[in-house]
């Protein structure tokens, strides 16, 4: 195990799932990578990976007496291990977010880099847990005041739980950021991983049910995501401690 990274933004529409899969594919060139759709209430990673009809998903691992094994809910796609989440409201309501810790612990033992695609809110335990469980958070931002404001909240939540900042990633950018990027870095206390331009290739990839790095590897967005992965530099040497920390911290849902 190397590191658990949460991709979070605090608001919807910033491209967290696209980012998670793009970073995952890029990191998979040098690491063993597992990607988890931890957005249990509004899952969509399965639609980006052609797993719409997946039999077993994360939901099955978050109920008492797991309804599936971790192996059954893990799919090999695009050079990564992918754990999708289902979209059934009933399954979401039946799931216990506290069990995510155990699932993460099991997955962490078997992979180098674990990427958690986080929910677009901080208003529920299931939404905060990925940030709590991660070693570092990637804050995905759009250059708008609401996005920066919500991203700052994510950064502060992460700080409260001792989760570091891997950096900020500006996504869906039109035009030039100029001094905005420098000011964001100063206020967030985190460097810029990449500035990803808005790009039809990303929408086309989503429509095709593929990660953008697979669908349009030469697109401007794919190039920027690869640069971000290079900047991430997953940190080795945390094996064992990570899994132990998750196991020790298992608490019942209140």
């Amino acid at each position: 195990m190397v590191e658990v990274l949460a991709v979070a933004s605090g608001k919807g529409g910033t491209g967290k799932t696209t980012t998670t899969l793009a970073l995952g594919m890029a990191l998979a060139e040098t690491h063993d990578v597992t990607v988890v759709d931890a957005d249990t209430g509004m899952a969509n990673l399965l639609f980006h990976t052609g797993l719409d009809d997946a039999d077993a998903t994360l939901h099955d691992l978050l109920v008492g007496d797991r309804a599936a094994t971790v192996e059954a809910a893990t799919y090999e796609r695009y050079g990564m291990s992918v754990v999708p989440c289902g979209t059934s409201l009933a399954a979401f309501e039946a799931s216990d977010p506290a069990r995510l810790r155990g699932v993460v612990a099991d997955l962490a033992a078997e992979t180098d880099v674990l990427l958690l695609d986080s929910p677009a809110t901080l208003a529920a335990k299931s939404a905060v847990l990925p940030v709590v469980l991660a070693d570092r958070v990637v804050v995905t931002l759009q250059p708008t005041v609401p996005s920066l404001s919500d991203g700052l909240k994510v950064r502060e939540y992460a700080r409260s739980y001792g989760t570091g900042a891997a950096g900020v990633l500006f996504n869906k950018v039109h035009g030039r950021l100029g001094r905005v990027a420098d000011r964001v870095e100063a206020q967030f206390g985190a460097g810029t991983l990449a500035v990803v331009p808005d790009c039809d290739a990303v929408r086309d990839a989503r429509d095709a049910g593929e990660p953008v790095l697979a669908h349009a590897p030469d697109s401007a967005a794919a190039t920027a995501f690869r640069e971000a992965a290079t900047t991430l530099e997953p940190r080795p040497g945390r094996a064992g401690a990570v899994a132990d920390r998750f196991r020790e911290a298992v608490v019942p849902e209140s």
Partner: protein
Amino acid sequence: MTPDLGGRLVRARSVDRLGVSFARALTEHHTGYLRIVADGPLHAATGVVTVVDGVPVTAACDDGECGPAAVDALVSPGPSRVETYRCDQTALASLHDRADCRVPPDAPAERLGEDDLAARTRERAPADRATVDGATLLSFLGDDRRLETIRSEARAEAHADATDWGLDDALTDE
């Protein structure tokens, strides 16, 4: 030179007001591009502005200028020659995938001073095409008091939530 985008020529006009061409593209939900030959008294420029659903996406001049600079060069209040081409969005990928060619949806209308057209274009533009508004963002990022309020409220919420959700042990004292 701008890339050959192909497509079908649907009209060619010499216009006194370029805004008419952009307004018509918006009304017709046109997808394709406008090839513009600007022949103003101070400068001449040739290039394209691509549109999707009538909304400008990219701009590029034949001399290599692109993005907002190309809008400045191509879109001027004087007379212009405009050819309107229709084509599929995929044919525009060579420009749409270039971040340096992207322009704000309302850039041509703003350049022309046509406020109503600019507003209608912004209204039509997809929500995720919000343009970087540097001045507003820098104002926000420079407001230390406002940012500290956001931070302190987030810290308070995180601690309150941790108690509610049994995550107290995960909090740090930092």
